[in-house]
């Protein structure tokens, strides 16, 4: 068992509908793990469960040796699990700079904060050009960069990326995956949820396939990408 992130028997529901029906999942430090599956398979629900936005109905989540099952979301964020939520969710009425400050709240106004901010702005030069603009006026791709930058401001030990390429123009999709590859190069641990299975499997070390709330297949990404069932269901036309 890995002592970084390990999930066992996790069940999550919205009201009476059970969306995640008992899944086991592991992420090793430094790895990029992807979770693929169709719309409604429970990918985003899983992410919301991990970040504490959704209460777990059963099962356990352990992170860095601590039991974080049902810990409040803000505590989980402070422990270093940073989620980039589906649909980016930037604070539209605040400036780019303020959005970044919110990501780095826990380091406050310190040398650490300024160093992280510079690192994020070096990684995303577009954000530097738009620091004083309201986030709502950025393009979708720029908002995704802001959401990523905001999460990086928190100095994440584990980055949860929920559909980072969703709704973006093809050029931006390519750029976002390039950024994920860069983050991987820098040793960031990432759990990636994607509908774009092809791109996700190319970048990941390990993969899980989620169907109707259950994990139906898992293994090294290089094997999963060649699995006939995966090819038929998710990679067929690409």
């Amino acid at each position, binding site marked *: 068992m890995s002592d970084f992130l390990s999930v066992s028997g996790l069940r999550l529901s919205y009201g009476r509908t059970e969306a995640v029906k008992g899944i086991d999942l592991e992420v090793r430090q430094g790895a990029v793990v992807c979770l693929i599956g169709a719309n409604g398979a429970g990918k985003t629900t899983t992410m919301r469960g991990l970040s504490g936005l959704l209460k777990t109905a059963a099962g356990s989540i352990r992170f860095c040796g601590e039991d974080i099952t049902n810990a409040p979301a803000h505590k989980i*964020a402070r422990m270093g699990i940073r989620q980039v939520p589906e649909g980016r969710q*930037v604070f539209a009425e605040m400036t780019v700079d303020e959005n970044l400050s919110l990501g780095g709240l826990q380091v406050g106004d310190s040398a650490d904060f300024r160093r992280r901010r510079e690192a994020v702005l070096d990684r995303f030069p577009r954000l530097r050009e738009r620091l004083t603009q309201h986030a*709502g006026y950025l393009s979708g791709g720029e908002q995704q960069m802001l959401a990523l930058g*905001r999460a990086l401001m928190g100095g994440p030990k584990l980055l949860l990326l929920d559909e980072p390429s969703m709704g973006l123009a093809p050029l931006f999709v390519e750029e976002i995956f390039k950024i994920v590859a860069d983050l991987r190069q820098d040793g960031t641990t990432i759990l990636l949820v994607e509908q774009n299975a092809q791109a996700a499997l190319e970048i990941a070390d390990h993969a899980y396939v989620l169907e109707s709330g259950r994990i139906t297949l898992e293994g090294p990404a290089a094997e999963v990408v060649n699995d006939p069932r995966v090819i038929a269901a998710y990679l067929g036309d690409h």
Partner: protein
Amino acid sequence: MLAQQLVNGLVLGATYALFALGLTLMFGVLRVINLTYGFYFSVGALVALWLARSVGLPIWAVVLLGGVAAGLVAVVVDGVLLTRLRRTKAGELPSLMVTLGAVLALYSLSAIWLGTEIQRFPFDFVDSSAFEIGDLRISLVQILIVCVTFALVGLLFVLLHYTRVGLMIRALAENEDTARLMGINVDAIVIVVSFVSGLLGGVGGVLIGLNFNAIQPFMGETMMLRGFAVIIIGGLGDIRGALIAGVLLGMFEVLTASYISSSAKEAVAFGALVLTLWFRPTGLFGRKEVKRA
């Protein structure tokens, strides 16, 4: 005389603005229609009255402590009535009904306890001296009211835009879940927001009490309706709008009372409300929501 009416209107309007600011903050950040807000206005005035009469504190301390007391009451009321509803994401109607019931109970309990007669500050508590410029008379109390209002508005602006807590408050106002993902302890921020909005409402109550020197438990009730008129005319959640709309409403009321009839006052406030909703449903200064790309 017009100049005198405008001064009186500005003073009255300043207190309306202050009261409405607390309401718009509460609504904008906590996303609940909390009808107990008018009660905090009464609490501020009643505590101030008690401090002035029984403890003999000076006027500045009475304004400050009246506000603090109302802020604390707001924190308790919100904690008891609304925390559970928020946690279950119960929506607006349940919170409306719960707070409607609660505010009626709170008013009648305080009326049983304190009586419904109009009570006044001790003789000479309020310095009645005034500056006179020709026929125009501006009393020290009026100056105090305007200064306190603008000082609090300034402080609120600084709090929201130049402090870490303010950043967290605005984040919560926009998106609660994402605020949590930033590591923000939402429960703690809710307490801060309840306290600040209760304080603004309470200070408004003290100032109106000083202005008219007439205090009774139900005074928050009619004020609540004005508060809604101001925040709707100014645009929900819009600080600048609440400020301008509050001052305008105060001026219109005073002018109506002196040039038409004091019983037409209320008609003006709610006529303005209806007209605003008719022509500009987002309020006079309401922005359209920033579009997400």
